[in-house]
């Protein structure tokens, strides 16, 4: 297919063909990643700016590694040491970056729509590295890549996503992406974290984990933000863990070879038991490796050419 996008803002608006193309492109990228000499000349002279308004070591490092392997020049602006803390608006910061003639901007921001906002005002290509509670497309793509490595075609595969769905951009992106790839997604969480309006994502919802595990090919535990307890969204870690935490024991109910994913960082003993996290079922480290490959694919697709840009 002919790649025509200038930005990756979310999976809601990508087609199945586009998602497949990204995942397909990530395969040769992973081969490069596994070489002893991992450096390509492909994007020599292209620059990628990482604009991170939320602390995130792993996502930022993953993007930087991906850009560097492809030969692009990468730079980072983290919120703490920048003019952002001096009250400069996102727009002004972005304009400054644009004036440096950056080809691609990777942004993480606490506000939903921050990436779309930049795409509206800047010439550069934009990759959304997580915008508020809206989308985290690269995480969902690496999750899908990891599932594809395990199962091949995702059609009919049963994926159970557990936890704080309401506040999760990972859950949203995965729901959009997996549905397009033909998987059957079930969202599971307590009613306060999985309220009725989440049916907007168009997938099955349940408050009862035990009832949903049977036949699950993939079980994904989301990170529980512990401060949600103070907001009264769940009564205690103990009760949360008992109802929605996953363990090898609980996963016996799937009755098949299930893989376990987690976007990290994990709260061991809360949403996932330590023994499960370290078991062969868990593909959590594989997810990290695949994250670099998927981000390489995206950077390549968005910055690889110059005249193909159609928003």
């Amino acid at each position, binding site marked *: 297919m*002919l*790649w025509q996008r200038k930005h990756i803002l979310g999976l809601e608006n990508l087609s199945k063909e586009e998602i497949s*193309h990204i995942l*397909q*492109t990530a*395969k*040769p*990228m992973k*081969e*490069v990643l596994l*070489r*002893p*000499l991992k*450096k*390509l*000349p*492909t*994007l020599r*002279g292209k620059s990628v700016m990482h604009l991170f308004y939320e602390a995130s070591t792993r996502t930022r490092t993953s993007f930087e590694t991906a850009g560097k392997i*492809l030969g692009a020049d990468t730079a980072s602006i983290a919120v703490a040491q920048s003019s952002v803390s001096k009250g400069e608006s996102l727009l002004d910061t972005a304009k400054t970056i644009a004036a440096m003639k950056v080809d691609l901007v990777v942004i993480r921001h606490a506000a939903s729509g921050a990436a779309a906002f930049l795409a509206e005002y800047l010439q550069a290509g934009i990759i959304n590295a997580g915008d508020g509670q809206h989308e985290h497309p690269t995480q969902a793509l690496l999750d899908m890549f990891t599932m594809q490595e395990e199962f091949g075609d995702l059609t009919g595969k049963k994926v159970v996503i557990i936890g704080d769905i309401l506040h999760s951009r990972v859950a949203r992106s995965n729901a959009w992406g997996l549905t397009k790839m033909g998987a059957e997604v079930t969202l599971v969480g307590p009613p306060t974290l999985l309220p009725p309006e989440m049916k907007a994502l168009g997938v099955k919802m349940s408050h009862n984990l035990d009832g949903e595990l049977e036949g699950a090919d993939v079980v994904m535990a989301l990170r529980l933000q512990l401060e949600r307890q103070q907001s009264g969204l769940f009564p205690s870690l103990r009760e949360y863990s008992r109802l929605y935490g996953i363990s090898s024991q609980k996963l016996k109910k799937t009755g098949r070879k299930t893989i376990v994913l987690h976007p990290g960082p994990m709260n061991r003993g809360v949403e996932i038991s330590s023994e499960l996290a370290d078991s062969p079922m868990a593909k959590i480290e594989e997810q990290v490796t695949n994250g670099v490959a998927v981000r390489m*694919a995206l950077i*390549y*697709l968005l910055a*690889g*050419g*110059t*005249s*193909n840009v159609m928003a």
Partner: protein
Amino acid sequence: MEGITKSRIMDANGIRRALTRIAHEIIEKNKGTLDVVLIGVRRRGVPLAERLQNLILEFEGVKLPLGILDITLYRDDFSTIGFQPVVHETDVPFDVQGKQVILVDDVLFTGRTARAALDAMMDLGRPQRIQLAVLVDRGHRELPIRADYVGKNVPTSRRESVSVCLREVDDSDEVLLMEKPG
């Protein structure tokens, strides 16, 4: 393939004979098959390399290791082309360190693909020597590159193009000289 066919440069027999000769030359030049490996450059270099592998197996009873090289990520025209070339996997399932690498491609033209292939090879390790085998050399080099094994030298003009068809991908074995439209 766009353009109109001007002539057929090689037919199936011509291709077979050229490859047979190249296979012999490879064996002769490398004094046998020790440490020789074949690397097909995507896309039509791959079936050509496979055919050479089979011919050498026939002549010498040795099955040479075969790898596949995708040079997309090593192209030098990313800032000028108007589309995103699709990247495919490189699959070289052996160590190239100290090997006699035979790079196999269909057409040698400007030399830019060969340059990209050489860079791609270097990133995989440090071979003892790299040689280049092509089915057709049509001239017009833009880089100081030449082939070690050539199926056929074909003088062409820049307005022409050479189209290699192989059974494995195109349903027929032939090499056509085309006139570009416009």
